[in-house]
């Protein structure tokens, strides 16, 4: 949407500068002097500019600083680039056009281009449930998840020791003996250790770590596994709190050198596969995977799942019906009302106009919720009061649900069309109307051949954007019907009023009804973006012929 708009703006703004020189050197010189005064002449305006830029720079520097301390280097670099750009633009005398468009450009970058690019990036990964982290973290998670406390084993009071730099654990056995071990050396009984309060307080050959020192090295402490004996089957001591030791055995073993996971109980060896999971030879995988780039897999999946083939065609068709139908109905009703209330013979026009705009003032999602209550089959206002208790299944019958959706969107959307049509009608030149009248055109003829074409010049771009908006009108569908009623013949949770974007929401599991798949969701979003973008571009191109009328 924004892309086609930006290019002409850019060239238009550039144009006056290009057409500057032909004015001749005499005209140019004084102008350049005045231009220079913005930066060099210390007028009050300059100081205002200086103050504002100082505030902006201060804020920018603050962001850069906090990005630095949070190690968010992406934000840091972006902010730095924006600051440099802003200072150059507003203190240079050569960047006049940019002074106008820079704020808009920055907004465009931050809120549109970045989002689209990031979505594009995610579309080529398998980011989602089970592929949420990096490989290192996945390995770590698998290892901790597959540790088991040895059944029936006692917990033991534990002390963290240090020998030089190497950490060791000392535990007190139920017999009162003190046993010490390190990562390499299994627990062995140590003589001459002092026990205070059931806990080893002093061990010869080792220093006892104070609480503060323990906390300084807490990652090492929680990761330390001290074998109980030479036999790995006996498990190892670990501590979650540096006070108590528990005996654990691991059922998974990670070999960093060969990049494999081994299940110690079955001997199965898992190796990393291309999908970012550990896979055994028989195809079974370990639960936790990591995020990898998967190329066009998501796009292939989107169109290859047989269960979605039939519903997809229906949903695509309904999406177009819904988007076009919404624009057509709201525009026609809005136009009709605008023409009616534009007639000077009508009394109380202002009051009517205010009333007409009211639905526009209610947030869309709220209105949709409200209407879903009003349309409730047994208890809804519509059925109970207007239809005298008839149980009309407004939202649960496939055809009625579609009509209800269109109707509610009409209710929500016509004030907007009413507003823009009123504005456009009032700006129509009256001389053309008079000319039509003099030429003997009737009312219908005037409307068909003069009013409507003139009106469309100013409203066509808005109709196109309204189409694009309704094509992705997720809020209404989600709040009003949730896509229902379901297709009785499909095997996927999609319904008769689902549009493409709500289908994406379901397939990708973002609604919680399936394992989340952000990669797939992004891929499908890009497909929708391409559809909407293409249609909008074509439509904008064809609206040029309206402009020729002018």
């Amino acid at each position, binding site marked *: 949407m924004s892309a086609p708009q930006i290019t002409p703006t850019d060239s238009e703004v550039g144009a006056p500068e290009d057409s500057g020189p032909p004015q001749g050197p005499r005209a140019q010189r004084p102008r350049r002097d005045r231009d220079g005064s913005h930066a060099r002449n210390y007028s009050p305006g300059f100081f*205002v*500019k200086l103050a504002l830029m100082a505030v902006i720079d201060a804020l920018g520097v603050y962001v850069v600083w906090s990005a630095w301390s949070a190690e968010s280097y992406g934000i840091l670099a972006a902010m730095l680039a924006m600051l440099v750009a802003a200072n150059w633009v507003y203190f240079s005398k050569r960047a006049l056009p940019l002074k106008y468009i820079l704020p808009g450009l920055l907004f465009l970058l931050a809120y549109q281009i970045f989002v689209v690019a990031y979505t594009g990036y995610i579309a080529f990964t398998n980011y989602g449930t089970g592929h949420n982290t990096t490989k290192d*973290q996945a390995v*770590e*998670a698998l290892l901790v998840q597959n540790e088991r406390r040895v059944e029936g084993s006692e917990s033991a009071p534990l002390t963290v020791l240090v020998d030089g730099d190497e950490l060791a654990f000392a535990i007190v056995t139920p017999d009162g003996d003190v046993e010490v071990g390190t990562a390499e050396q299994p627990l062995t009984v140590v003589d001459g250790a002092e026990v205070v309060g059931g806990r080893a307080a002093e061990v010869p050959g080792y220093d006892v770590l104070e609480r503060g020192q323990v*906390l300084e090295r807490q*990652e090492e402490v929680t990761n330390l596994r001290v074998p109980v004996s030479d036999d790995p089957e006996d498990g190892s001591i670990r501590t979650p709190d540096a006070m108590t030791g528990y005996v654990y055995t691991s059922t998974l073993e990670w070999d960093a050198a060969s990049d494999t996971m081994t299940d110690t109980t079955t001997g199965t060896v898992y190796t990393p596969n291309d999908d970012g999971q550990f896979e055994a030879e028989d195809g079974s995988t370990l639960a936790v995977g990591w995020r990898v780039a998967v190329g066009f897999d998501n796009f292939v999946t989107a169109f290859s799942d047989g269960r979605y083939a039939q519903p997809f065609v229906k949903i695509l068709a309904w999406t177009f019906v819904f988007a076009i139908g919404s624009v057509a109905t709201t525009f026609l009703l809005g136009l009709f009302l605008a023409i009616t209330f534009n007639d000077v013979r009508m009394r109380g026009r202002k009051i009517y106009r205010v009333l007409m705009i009211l639905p526009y003032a209610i947030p869309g999602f709220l209105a949709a919720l409200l209407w879903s209550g009003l349309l*409730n089959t047994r208890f809804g206002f519509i059925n109970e009061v207007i239809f005298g208790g008839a149980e009309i299944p407004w939202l649960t019958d496939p055809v009625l649900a579609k009509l209800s959706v269109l109707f509610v969107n009409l209710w929500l959307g016509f004030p907007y069309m009413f507003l823009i049509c009123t504005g456009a009608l009032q700006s129509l030149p009256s001389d053309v109307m008079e000319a039509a009248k003099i030429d003997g055109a009737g009312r219908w003829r005037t409307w068909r051949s003069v009013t409507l074409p003139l009106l469309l010049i100013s409203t066509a771009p808005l109709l196109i954007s309204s189409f694009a908006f309704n094509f992705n009108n997720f809020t209404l569908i989600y709040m009003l019907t949730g896509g229902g009623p379901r297709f009785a013949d499909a095997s996927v949770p999609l319904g008769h009023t689902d549009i493409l974007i709500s289908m994406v929401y379901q397939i990708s599991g973002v609604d*919680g009804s399936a*394992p989340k798949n952000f990669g797939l969701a992004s891929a499908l979003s890009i497909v929708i973006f391409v559809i909407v973008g293409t249609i909008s571009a074509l439509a904008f191109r064809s609206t040029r012929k309206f402009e020729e009328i002018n």
Partner: protein
Amino acid sequence: MRRSILLAAALSTTLALTACSGGGSGDDETTSGSGDSTGSTGALTVWVDETRQAAVTDAAKAFEAENGTKVEVVLKNFDDIRADFLAQVPTGKGPDITVGAHDWLGEFTTNGVVAPLELGDKASEFEKVSIEAFTQDGQVYGLPYAIENIALIRNTALAPAAPATWDEAIAAGQAAGTKFPILVQSDGAKGDPYTHYPFQTSFGAPVFSQNADGSYSSELAMGGPEGQAFATWLGAQGAAGNLSQDTTYDIAVEAFKNGESPFIVGGPWMIESFEGLDLSIDPVPSAGGQPAQPFVGVQGFYLSNQSKNALVANDFLVNFLSTEEAQTALYKAGNRSPALTVSADKAAAEDPIIAGFRAVGADAVPMPSIPEMASVWSFWGVTEAAIVGGADPIPTWDKMIADIQAAIGS
């Protein structure tokens, strides 16, 4: 004039950018505080929702006073916590501890964002079902603090005795002469399988089969003759008008409040709407002959797998949030039965409503937290609603089972 507009625009741009990036780095700062501070005063970051904030802050103060470790309690919207935790833990900028519900566990472990806890002997001090709910594959992943489940809420003025079976409930409801014999909420075409679940279990058709230790296997158990019997019952009750997909939560609560039904199937969250009514909390009446077991939801605290302060976090969870004071304070804030048995006993002694829900919860089953459950929800309620609305029960139910199995397998 023009220039000032321009500058104002530039200013607002930068302000907006600052605001958004500042917000991000603000978050980062709080956690980088914990990240950098591998020192002796390593600060803990804890995510809580509004209801729990005060209680956790109190426990944090006690912890700070005793250990000198700073605890930063960050207020989050409960609905955002699940997604944010999943997204932020892998970046290393997530919290050390977060509040959460037990049914998030499957997704959390699959994504490797939570670390197991060792409760040691403390585990036995909690209600059994609360520990069971946070257990996966023999490891406990959360410190529970509250248990919630639905039960039959009875307006004693309209029905003097608790019904044992669905038919008794309907008969008592009709005898009361109210508009609805019993209220079981639904949600239009989406249905409400959570509220209907006790009736399903009373036919012996649990959603997944349970292993010996109470955890769920991924084997769907609600098909077969038991499930079909439940489906047939749903169809019959829908036709009789006892169940309706149009009775949404709001409608059901409003009707019960106005004395339009002696019974409503609901949870402790409804109670504050029923002020002034004399209530009794009873077991959900059985429809299929077996005990009607509702789902139990347990809330607790998760420990991040990427926490750089695992020792301190463990200490805080096991020794400060599992104390009687902390659990009772959490109960007072959220009004759900505490997970710590001592606190639960006291709460139940003070409040018969809590005691009632707790008694029902004792026989209930934890809501499955396995990842396969996500695929069940999307078909389950819709199918139930369709059957209540008049669809042919058995084929519709069987198709749902096949669809769920296909979704799980895909």
